Each structure stands twice: as C-alpha cells, then as structure tokens.
C-alpha cells in the first residue's frame, strides 16, 4: 500500500511539473500604428517680403506645411481645432536649401507621427501644427524685421496667423481651408534654435496672439552671462573656419562654399537680420550688404555689436513691459548638454535671468547619448513629445477645455 502512495505521489509531481512546463503563454498584442494625420501644403505671398531687393524676394511665395489631425476632413463641416506654430531653425550644413525652404524642418523629425501617437493615446488634444518656411539666402531667418532679409517678425506673427485663420478652400493643395480656433488661448508658438528665438521674440512683441510659447536651445542671450560670452564665443570659430587672418581676406569673404561652413551661415544670417549694411558702409562686407560684429582679429566692432544687442532678448528682460508679458505667458524652455553653437548655454543664461526676475517658466533639460551627433536638432524628435504635451496643457479646445 505504501508503495502505491509513492507511485501516485511521484506521478502527480511529474504531471504537475510537465503540465506547468507545457503551458503556452500568449504574448501581449503589439500595438498597431495609430491613425495618421496628414501634412498639407499651401503657398503664401508674404507682404513682408515685398519691397526687398531682387535677391531677397526671389521666392516671395513661400510654402507652409500644416499637420492636420487624424480624420480631419477638409471637405466637411466639423469641429475646429487649436493651432501650434513651430518656427524652423536652420542648419549650417549642406542640408539647407534656400530654393526649397525649410518648412520640412520638423517633418524631418517626424512631428506628424509624434502627434499621431499622442493624440491616439489621449495625451494631447487634436490640433493643427503650422510649419512655415523661414529660409533666407544666407541661411535662416532670425525673426526680426530687416530692411535686407524681410520683415520676418511681422510675417511670422500677425501676417501668418491671419493667413492661417482665414485660409480659403482654394488655397490649400487639398482644396479646403483650415477650421482653426481663432483666439489667443487656442494658439501656441514654439521653435528650436533660431526658431526658438523667434518664438520667444514674437510672443514678447505680440502679446495678444499666443497663449503659450516654447523654445529649445535658442540664442536668447547674445552677450551670454557671467564668464560665458554668448555668441562672441563663436567669433574665432568663424575666422578659423573661413581661413581669415588679414583684413583683405576678411573683406574678400563671400558666400562661396558657405553651405559647408556652419559658422559663416550663422553669422551671415544674423547679420542680414540685425546689421544689414549698404554696399558703401565702411565696416560692412560690401558685396554681401551685411556688417559683422567683429573684425578679422575677432575683436568686437561696437557699432555693429550694439545693433545686435538691441535684438538680444536677455537685455529685453530689463524692460518692465516685457517682464510683465512673460509673467503672464505660459513659457517652456529646454536646453541640451551638447549644442555646438552653445545656444543651449544662452538658453540657460536666459533661464537664470527669468528666475532672478521671478518669472515662472517650465524648464527641461536633455542629454545626448554616447556616440550620437552633438547637435540638439538630433533629438528634436524626442523633444517634440514634451513640447506638444506642454502646449496642450495651455491650448483651449472648442469646448473651452484645456
């Protein structure tokens, strides 16, 4: 009898172990791709480019890309959505192409798919994302009104917003308009690099347009702070990159090969915006119609540098009017640990001053991973999630909800 119990016991143990071992587990279903929104284009002839010379208004009809949320139907009456404007930065690399423009700046970072995912998961509300082309012949806009480069501050604020809110059905490629919520509380603006500078500047000068503003690694403190010299840190890099050691070489510089010279593109673009100069100007680069804020030794040229500093948002913070505007604005700032132009440090200088002034803002920082490219645009795809979530908190939908 005893051996029978043993046999039964051993058999049961064997059956249990074998049964457990044979259990087949079902894998969780891999999530399917969320419904995809569309990116539509239209072109707009900006008033702000009218009247500039033939080089600069060569392509006055600029493209604007617009992300529309999944299911949005241009042809049917439906709900209206809030709008986020993303101003492009530009690259001091062969990628930049004036003829084509840079409205694809955020599309290259797959912004549409990021928005799809967040909308599908309910993390953000459906929205439009407007991505204008802000390229200029020397590189990218710095979003101030310039007699040479165009009135980019006006164009990217009142003019573009009005255009988007009143877009007619015949102007879009798809043959329909955009059903936007035309109110400050339903508009937001943001940008990366020079685009971030533009977003903050436009939010400071157009208080009635946008309910929230964000910037990633933006040049917000031209003169730096403390021991950090701001944009001046790059003067020598420009001279070295261009092989300039004499006054003759300094004057002889031109746009040849500038697409492979990132510092040249940066300074030409800024100079076209902040310090355009007639061909006869003593301190200017005659052929280019610009003046640089440093000489061939890299020493500051005060007369030009001071013009640049009038566009320095760090200094604007000394003005009580701008302080009050930002105190009432929803502001998000991001800085990386690896921006080759050191715009990340300029953003951090700006953040420190905001803190000193008691102006609230939503800070965020990010790092590169080992082996990745040392440019903050490399991680735009990842940061867009944070940017979209931030703006969503401050965008009012058609039901008045945030």
């Amino acid at each position, binding site marked *: 009898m005893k051996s029978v119990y043993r046999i039964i016991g051993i058999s049961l143990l*064997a059956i249990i172990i*074998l049964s457990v071992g*044979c*259990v087949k587990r079902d894998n969780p279903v891999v999530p399917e791709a969320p419904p995809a929104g569309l990116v539509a284009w239209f072109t707009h002839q900006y008033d702000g480019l009218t009247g500039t010379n033939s080089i600069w208004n060569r392509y006055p009809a600029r493209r604007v890309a617009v992300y529309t949320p999944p299911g949005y139907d241009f042809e049917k009456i439906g709900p209206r959505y809030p709008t986020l404007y993303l101003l492009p930065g530009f690259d001091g*690399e062969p*990628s930049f192409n004036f003829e084509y423009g840079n409205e694809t700046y955020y599309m290259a970072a797959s912004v549409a798919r*990021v928005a799809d995912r967040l909308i599908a998961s309910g993390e953000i509300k459906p929205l439009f994302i407007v991505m204008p082309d802000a390229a200029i012949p020397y590189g990218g806009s710095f979003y101030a009104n310039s007699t040479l480069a165009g009135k980019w501050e006006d164009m990217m604020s009142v003019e573009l917003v009005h255009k988007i809110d009143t877009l007619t059905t015949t102007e879009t490629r798809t043959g329909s308009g955009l059903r936007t919520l035309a109110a400050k509380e339903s508009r937001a603006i943001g940008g990366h690099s020079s685009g971030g500078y533009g977003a903050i500047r436009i939010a400071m000068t157009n208080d009635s347009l946008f309910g929230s503003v964000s910037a990633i690694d933006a040049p917000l403190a031209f003169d730096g702070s403390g021991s950090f010299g701001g944009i001046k840190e790059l003067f020598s890099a420009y001279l070295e990159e261009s092989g300039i050691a004499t006054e003759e070489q300094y004057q002889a510089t031109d746009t040849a090969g500038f697409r492979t010279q990132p510092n040249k593109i940066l300074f030409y673009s800024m100079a076209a915006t902040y310090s355009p100069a007639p061909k006869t100007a003593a301190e200017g680069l005659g052929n280019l119609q610009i003046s640089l804020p440093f000489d061939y030794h890299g020493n500051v040229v005060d007369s030009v540098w001071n013009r640049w500093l009038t566009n320095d948002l760090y200094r604007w913070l000394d003005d009580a009017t701008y302080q009050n505007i930002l105190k009432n604005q929803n502001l998000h700032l991001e800085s990386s640990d690896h921006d080759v132009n050191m715009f990340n440090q300029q953003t951090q200088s700006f953040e420190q001053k905001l803190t000193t002034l008691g102006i609230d803002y939503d800070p965020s920082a990010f790092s590169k*991973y080992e082996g990745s490219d040392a440019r903050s645009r490399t991680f735009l*795809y990842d940061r867009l999630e944070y940017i979209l979530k931030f703006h969503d908190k401050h965008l009012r939908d058609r039901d008045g909800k945030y």
Partner: protein
Amino acid sequence: MELRKVALLTLIVAVLMSGAALAGGWQYSGVGARAKAMGGAYRGIADDGIGAYYNPAGLAFLQQNIFNLTGEVSSPRPTATPDFKAKGYGFGYLDGQKRYGKDASYLMGEASLFFRPKKDNNFVFGLAFFQGYDQNTTMNLYQLSPAYNSKIQISDVNHRSNFDVITWQPTAAMKFSHDRVAVGVGLQINRGDILVDQVRLVDNPYPYPLNVRPYDKFAELYSVDGYGFGVGANVGVQFKVSPKLTIGANYVSTSKIKITGDSKERIYLPFNDGFAHLYMDPQASAYQREVDSTYKGAMIGNTGEFEVEMKLPSEFGVGFAYHPNEKTIVSADLVYTRWSEFQDFQIKFKNRVTNQKQGYFATWDAMFTDVAVPFQWKDKIKISIGLEKILNERWTYRGGYMFDQSPVPDETFSQLFLDTGTKHHFNAGAGFKLNERISFDAALELVVFSSRTISTLTDVNDDQYWDNFGGEFKNLSFNSTWALNYRF
C-alpha cells in the same frame, strides 16, 4: 536481440535524434535519466552507457553489454521586458512590454551502446551519443515605429537563436589494480548548428541632418542558418578508495567547430518625405536621388553564405560517490568550465547577392557588414549533489540539486543566450527494474534562473554596435528525461 541489430538500432536512433535535438540552456544541465535525477553528480558513478558523458572511466565497471535509449523533453519559458535605451532614447524595441518566448516543448535524445568482451573482463568499448549544448529562443522584441517607417513592418521573428551541439563519442575504458583504478577515453565528434535571426542597429551612414532621430540608427535583420563539425576529447579516471567510496575526475577538451551555411541580410530603410528634395543643387542631383531613395521606406537586402567558428569551452570535473550501505549512494560533483574560451562569434558573410535590381547605392552596400558578437564570458563552476536509494528489488528513488553559475557578464548579455543568472536545478526521479535485462529510469527537473536587468547599453569591442540588450530577463525551464536500459 542480436548484437548487430542493437548496433544498427543505436546508429539509427542517433541519426534521427540529431535532427530533433532541441532544448533550453546553452550547456544543457546533463544527460541520462539516472544521472540527471541525481543533479548530475555522476563522476564518481558513471557505470552505465550514458555515463560516458560524465566520466568515460566509469564504463570500465559495466557488468554487461548495455544499450541505452533516452528521450528528453525540455520546456524553457523565458521572459524579456526590453528597455533598450541609451540615455532614455529608444530605438524601436518593445520597451516596457513583457514578451514571452515562443513557448514550446523540445525533444532531444541520447543513446549509447557499450560492450564488455568476454575474453577481456577489464576492457569496455562502445559509442555514446548525446546533446551537451543547446539554446533555443524565439521572441518578437522589435517593431519599426511609425515614426521611423510607416510603410512596412519587420518580421515577428526578429530575435531567434537556436544553437545546438550534438556529440558522437566513441569511448573505451579499462580498469587496473584489482579493479580499483579505471581510465576512460572518448573521442568527441561534435556537430554544431546555428540558426539566428537578430535585429541590430546600423549607424545611419548619411551626414547630419539626415541622421537625426529617429533615423540615427537603421534597423537591420540578419539571419544565418548553418552547421559544421569539430573534434575534441573526453578523458576520465576513477579510483575506488574503499568499497564504499569512489572518486572520479574527467577533462573535456575544447573543440573548434567551423560552421558554414546560408545567410540573409535585410535593412529596413526609413520613410520620411520631409527629406525629399533636400538637396536641389544641379551638381548634387545624383545625391538628391540617393537621399530620396533612402527615405522612401524600402527594404533592401541580400542572400548569401556565412562562416563562423564556434569554440566550445574545456571543462574539468571531479566528484565522489559514497555508499553508506548497499542500498544508498550519496554523490557530489564540482565542475570548472573555462567559458573564457568561448570567445566570440565572428560571423563573416560572403557571396552576397543583392535583391535590388536597380537603384542600389554604394552607401547602402557599405551598411552590410560582418557581425561580431563578443562574449567575454567568465570561467565558472557547477556544484551538484545527488542521492540514490534502492527501495526494493524493482524501485529506486533519486534526488539531486545543481548550483550553476552564469558565465555571461552584463556587458555582453543578450537574448542570444538567455542565461539570465545563477541557475538552481532541482531534480527528482525513479528507476524501475522490469527484469534482469530491462529497466527504466525517469527524471524531472525544474531549473530556476536568477533574473537579470541590463540598464546600460555597452559596446565592448568598439565596433559601433551595442553588444548587450537592455531590459529585464527571466527564465524558467521544465525538463523531463525518460530512459530505457537493455542489458545483454
């Protein structure tokens, strides 16, 4: 049964089993139902056919000719929760999702046939066949994110590894000194099989800003399927210290197996029309076409052949068997395995034939490179203890335990070899003697693996590919072994 028929049956079984021999765990926990029931503490015993695996010297104490046929069923149950990120940035792995292996039960087998010629009572010879190594995992751990490519999707079988080594071991053993000392020698003819499907992340070869995320890495799925042969040796010695105590030791040499077979490489290019017409200069138009083609979301690839060398580790084991009475055996083994000799897989591809008829670019071609899988494993020990108790003339009960350290460091741990950590083998079994010629043995084994969490991706050989796999890994294995012994 005639001797020739038994020999023929052994050969047939060996050939048939070689194709079906699959199980979990790279070095299998042991072979033979009696030995496994005792936790593999068998170097001081090894007195049956399959003992040739543990200690060829033990065969010298065979009392009769013996034929053994063993079947094993192994049911590994691995679980992976990927967290394949660098500084928080993901790359398409199913991060945070608990993923199970393709749960299945695998059959493997062993057989042996040994003779004791009547004219020489001190000499035994024969053939043993067994599978000492196996790893078999199939998992779906990666999907192309819509942000990377919304046009196509990668195969669900994107992380599969099946590595086997089966061994034919002709063995001879002899005893000396009034039956107190025995030595045995086995020639190991090893067949190694490799089947791999594996995603690896290739650096985007194009310059900034074409390489911004999520396009900083391109997704490659490479597959290899092949086999090869190598030789080694297994030598052992046993010494009967007293009628109650036997000690044994064996040494298994390293064995290099050169494996060749078929290969397939595929790179899933990204899709993003935001890069279209990025370069408009007439001088750059050819480059523009290449960029446009690259970001159209196509799958490019080739078929070809590959070769790789698999170097099995040597190991040295010692053990004892103590008979406190006629019905009881207590045994223990300690095995030192030189896993550091299992150096790496250098998979070299050759004779590639691209599947692209036209519009193929040199930059694309350069992305298809050989695969280096560094191991940098550490030498480790296994400790086993076993107990056998004869209850009556028919029934024998057995139990055992094995402590088995993982040689795999975090820096090279991946799903290729899911040896997640220290393993605890719990074994139990029984033997049933039908008559003087036929007996049966059975063993059950539960292998509990320590879990492992990889939180930092590393590139130990600086070839721009990460060599480990971020995430949390668990494993559990259920094994059963069933044996028929025929003495004649």
